[in-house]
């Protein structure tokens, strides 16, 4: 008997509809930190002071895993002692379903040596991380965004408010559990609010398909199917455009609709 594969039912993200059971994903190659002189000395000096759980080089970045309690001290040390004076980006990843954790990453840049380090740490869902916005003011915005999008709690931030979503928003959009579409009530929200429930029948629900085109709606959209030549009057006569390419396509024959043959004789 075959076991069913475990699927995280809370994860509502788009998923591939077909997966080969025996396919093993290749990995982007990682290298030992000792393969790069600069990174190696930085790492050695960092290791003397702090715990480094894991370190490797991937695509030119040194990736470090540290303890989340050390984040301020490590970043400060990288800046003051090792010359990584710029924090370029900071955000988190949602691993809640897998391990109940967020993975926070900090992208550091040393502009004298043009070297980049990615400092990472794992925190539990309810665990707060210390703000670094007084060392790198950029974190003032980035941490707000991280909170807004993922709900990562940040301690000692002077203005911890949502930044992209409205203040009264519920939920954190970049979590894997966040629904991709609103529910039934949401699709009527604007109609109810502006025109009242009576108008539901007249207006109809919100169109969720962003690619939906009503080809007969000649008022708002291009007159699809009723195109006329440039400058001519609009007509209600249907235009038909057979597939055509100027010199024809290799191996593809042009279809002449009036000149077709129905094969009745199956054995032929």
């Amino acid at each position, binding site marked *: 008997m075959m076991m069913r594969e475990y699927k995280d039912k809370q994860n509502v*993200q*788009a*998923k*591939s*509809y*077909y997966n080969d059971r025996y396919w093993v*994903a*290749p*990995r*982007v190659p*990682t290298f030992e930190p000792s393969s790069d002189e600069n990174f190696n000395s930085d790492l050695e000096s960092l290791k003397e002071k702090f715990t480094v759980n894991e370190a490797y080089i*991937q*695509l030119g*970045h040194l*990736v470090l895993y540290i303890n989340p309690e050390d984040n301020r001290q490590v970043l400060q040390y990288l800046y003051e002692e090792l010359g990584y*004076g*710029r*924090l*370029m*980006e900071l*955000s988190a*990843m*949602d691993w809640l379903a897998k391990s109940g954790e967020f993975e926070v*990453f900090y*992208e550091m*840049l040393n*502009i004298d040596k*043009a070297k*980049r380090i*990615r400092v990472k740490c794992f925190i539990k869902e309810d665990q707060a991380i210390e703000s670094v916005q007084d*060392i*790198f*003011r*950029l974190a*003032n*915005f*980035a941490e707000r*965004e991280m909170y807004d*999008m993922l709900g990562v709690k940040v301690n000692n931030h002077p*203005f911890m408010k*949502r*930044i*992209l*979503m*409205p203040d009264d928003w519920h939920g954190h*959009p*970049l979590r894997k559990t*966040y629904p*991709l579409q609103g529910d039934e009530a949401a699709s009527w929200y604007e109609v109810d609010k502006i025109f009242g429930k009576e108008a539901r029948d007249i207006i109809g629900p919100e169109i969720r398909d962003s690619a939906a085109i009503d080809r007969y709606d000649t008022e708002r959209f291009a007159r699809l199917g009723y195109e006329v030549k440039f400058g001519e009057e609009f007509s209600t006569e249907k235009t038909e455009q057979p597939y055509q390419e100027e010199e024809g*396509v*290799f*191996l*593809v024959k042009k279809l002449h609709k009036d000149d077709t043959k129905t094969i009745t004789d199956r054995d032929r």
Partner: protein
Amino acid sequence: MQYTNRLEPFFENLEFERDDNHMIINFGPQHPSSHGQLRLIMELDGEQVVKATPDIGYLHRGMEKMGENMIYNEFLPTTDRMDYIASSSNNYAFALSVERLLDVEVPRRAQVIRTIMLELNRIASHLFWLATHALDVGAMSVFLYAFREREYILDLIEDYCGARLTHSAIRIGGVPLDIPDGWMNDLDKFLKKLPSDIADYEALLDQNRIWKMRLEDVGIVSQEMARTWGTSGIMLRGSGINYDIRKEEPYELYSELDFDIPVSHTNDSYGRYKLYMEEMRQSIRIMEQLIPMYDDTDRAIMADAPQYISAPKEQIMTQNYSLMQHFVLVTQGMRPPVGEAYVPTESPKGELAFYLNSQGDPYPYRMKIRAPSFFHTGILQDLLPGYYIADVVTIIGTTNIVFGEVDR
């Protein structure tokens, strides 16, 4: 004793604080000089800004969420809508990140075309910046001239890929189209014309009293402020720091090209204006070197990596296996190897990078867009206090923020 009836004055959008003379006003979100939907809550002491709080999110479309729910090729046209002044640079930053994950080699002809597109976009963006910034500061005619030249660039891009604003002209693994006949001549003609136009703008502005009064010593970004806010692009080089990703962490053909990085040591808006002018000249220089490079290249414009990238059309139409692979790549999407990529690129606005975390699925597990404008909006908190309200427009203009990119 009788007190006179002191009525509380009421003004829409204004709030007077009782104890001091401070006034809180809202700048935007519908202000023409905010270059998009920026709401700036400012506390004023007289006409001096005491505190500024940028409020953003009016153009938030959840691009990162969209990116995590689309296959890689499907998401590419969405990147156009970030920095819509220079869409190819967004396409490129995304494509480059995925290419690094896939470890594919882009054919040389595609590299030449991409680099030309990037530089054309840089000039278009700088011209747009000059036009709108000059308009904000009160120089109307520069706006008209700069938009005229920008139109030539849009025409060139339209001739190449059919689109003027949302190009999607750079794809994962190369470019979709080869350069049409005669296009290089048109480009060459334009490049011959542009330097005199830049000289015209400078003749109008460089020694213009009003321009200088409004820009000089306004919006001073010190080296420390540039560091702590992680500024990039001209906001960084305007603070006397010589760091251009094209030179320091070269990508595409930039390591083979000969160009200078202009740096300004005045730290003010005027210095940054000079940098924009000089960068356009350098872009012209880069493209002049690229035009002859094109002739020495082979016909291939898409990387040869059948596992990830569809074969050319002729091959798909003639070979069964290529058609099958194409079908799988279109319906299921490519599956990059497990790993992370953060590839910085020098977009016209600054350091633009896509952090991609791939778990070997057709959808990225996490996509974080590092948009330069986002942090250049944040810097307004520290930059504006101390300046007068008339300088606010200059300072917002000089940061060159685009809200498609700030709010994503």
